[in-house]
């Protein structure tokens, strides 16, 4: 073991133990008979699977399919275009997480707009964006809220704080999305033929294992909540294989060191206080009922979508881009005609190639 690795990550060291991973992989190989397709819903899982080379340890019977778990990738083209449009408003400073910078809208990206002189800042926390608003009272700071239930509570907290402190020049464009409605939508798609789900660990910390019970009961599909270390993922795959081989379909929590049945009550309270569920479009999945989080009326003064009259134009998806099929696992990235030919992380055509967590980017970086 490398003496420099993990000095401040000690609690994780056991889950990085090569011996443990090798034993789990051997158990999967011993247990697996049927040919199965498992979907990892979370982009962080996709990257961890690639970076640790998990696929090379699995038997041929087990295929891992990447799902719609990269928040940047499922953000609708209209929202991306709105971000670009907002960056052009005279007194606006755009505050955004780094992932969004390179995502191509219909006509431009934030990276290109910044090069053209727009004031676009990369922040690491919505509280940084709030601080920016506090420091620049003459400008309006628009924070681009993109993410799942993991990211949304911190943004709800920033909005709540803005109200408490009476900061009026802090606005949020909320394009947040919820994972459980997307799982249901995936099951409703024809020709999916999925045998099980690796459920996202970080999201589950917030919403709790219980949030998936209705989904698992309704579709009778094996589902296991997984952490992000190689051993976490291998253990979850082993549980899925065991369920499938024995004909069971249950929800199991393989990440109990941080995921509880009921989730994080404080975060859930904040989410419910600031946001309301609404029907929103997902790239590749269409409009899903109650799958998005928009600001409640009591917070509309901080809602960027209400504060600006954003000029939306019809925006056709880039031709030949298969992001929709890739996000739903119906096609693998190399099957997209654009993959590696005109669509690369440097010049992405679709969002799956942009984010570090995007399926195409992961395949491009680690896979081929």
């Amino acid at each position, binding site marked *: 073991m490398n*003496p420099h*690795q993990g000095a401040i990550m000690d609690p994780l060291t056991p889950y990085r133990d*090569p011996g443990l991973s090798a034993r789990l992989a051997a158990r999967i190989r011993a247990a697996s008979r049927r040919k199965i397709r498992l979907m990892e819903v979370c982009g962080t899982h996709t990257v961890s699977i690639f970076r640790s*080379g998990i696929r090379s340890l699995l038997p041929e019977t087990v295929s891992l399919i990447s799902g719609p778990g990269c928040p940047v990738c499922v953000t609708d083209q209209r929202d991306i275009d709105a971000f670009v449009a907002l960056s052009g408003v005279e007194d606006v400073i755009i505050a955004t*997480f*780094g992932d969004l910078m390179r995502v191509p809208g219909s006509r431009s990206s934030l990276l290109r707009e910044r090069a053209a002189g727009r004031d676009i800042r990369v922040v690491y926390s919505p509280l940084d964006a709030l601080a920016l608003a506090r420091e620049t009272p003459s400008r309006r700071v628009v924070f681009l809220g*993109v993410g799942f239930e993991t990211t949304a509570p911190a943004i709800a907290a920033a909005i709540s704080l803005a109200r408490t402190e009476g900061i009026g020049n802090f606005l949020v464009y909320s394009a947040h999305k919820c994972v459980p409605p997307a799982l249901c939508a995936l099951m409703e798609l024809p020709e999916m033929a999925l045998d099980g789900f690796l459920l996202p660990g970080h999201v589950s910390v917030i919403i709790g294992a219980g949030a998936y019970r209705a989904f698992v009961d309704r579709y009778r599909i094996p589902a296991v909540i997984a952490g992000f270390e190689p051993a976490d993922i291998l253990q979850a795959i082993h549980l899925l294989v065991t369920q499938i081989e024995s004909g069971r379909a249950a929800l199991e929590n393989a990440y109990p060191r941080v995921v509880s049945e009921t989730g994080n009550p404080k975060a859930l309270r904040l989410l419910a206080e600031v946001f309301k569920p609404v029907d929103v479009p997902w790239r590749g999945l269409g409009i899903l009922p109650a799958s998005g989080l928009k600001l409640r009326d009591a917070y509309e003064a901080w809602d960027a979508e209400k504060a600006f009259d954003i000029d939306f134009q019809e925006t056709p998806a880039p031709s030949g881009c298969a992001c929709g099929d890739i996000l739903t696992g119906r096609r693998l990235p190399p099957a997209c005609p654009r993959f590696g030919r005109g669509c690369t992380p*440097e010049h992405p055509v679709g969002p799956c190639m942009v984010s570090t967590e995007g399926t195409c980017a992961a395949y491009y970086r680690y896979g081929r």
Partner: protein
Amino acid sequence: MKPDKILLDHGSGGLMSHRLVTETLLPAFDNPLLAPLHDGAVLDLGQGRVAFSTDSFVVDPIFFPGGSIGDLAVNGTVNDLAMCGAEPRFLSMGLILEEGLPFSDLERILADMKSAAGAAGVFIVTGDTKVVPRGAADKVFINTTGIGLVPAGIQVAPNRVRPGDRILLSGTLADHGMTILSQREGLGFGGPVQSDTAPLNHLVKKMLAACPDIHLLRDPTRGGLGTSLNEVACSAGVGILMEEDRIPVRGPVAGLCELLGIDPLYVANEGKLLAFVPPEAEAPLMAVMQSDPLGRDAVVIGEVLADHPGRVEMKTRIGGRRIVRMLTGEQLPRIC
């Protein structure tokens, strides 16, 4: 009275320029070749092959834990020469200053350049200074160009890399890049993370003395280890296999990378080298490297293969295998 900021007049070529050169720049680097303030330095290089390299430095922030743009400007060019197997001797220095730069900042940078040049054993023998209006440059840009002598018998070049060569890395990865990123973004990780900027020429000299047959040297700066290895695999037409478990990353740096979703394989280093060496040279070179402060954490990270030419593969910590590609675009911190 000396102004406390750089003014456009300092670049006028007149009296103010003269004072800047004679009162601030010359004293910082005083040496017999620079002192005449002639239009150029006349050097006696003797016989042999000359290595020649140039690099420009535009880092923001200009001061950071572990060093400054001044250290980088000297060490960067010194290291480029050392990677040619050369002993660096003379540097030029081109300064582009933004109007309004505090004089104290300039003096601090020059002091860093002086001590870095001293540590590397090189002389700054000619230079130029320009001042541009506020906004036309970011505080200070520095170009250094250097020349060094390649000792007889030394042939360090990509076409000498052979299947079977061992790949040695002189120490921990990603210290410089993560320091700059954490400073630039105001992440407040100051303490435990600092740049590794350092001159590698003395280490290289010892290594070449122990093994004159070193096939290739590289410093994995921008683009990091992953990019450097891919460049070698492509230009030498060989495959490379490395082992993740051997790659040293300091704990705080690993933590910061993890937090931001950044792969340390693609982060810049400023005081590390890669050596491609024949298998029999592995043990003596490791001994030499590990006895030098700049190579204390040296490791053998992998080897050169005849298989999969042009491709770098990595055996992962859990025993899997994956491809390591060249970095594409700047790494952007992720959302979740």
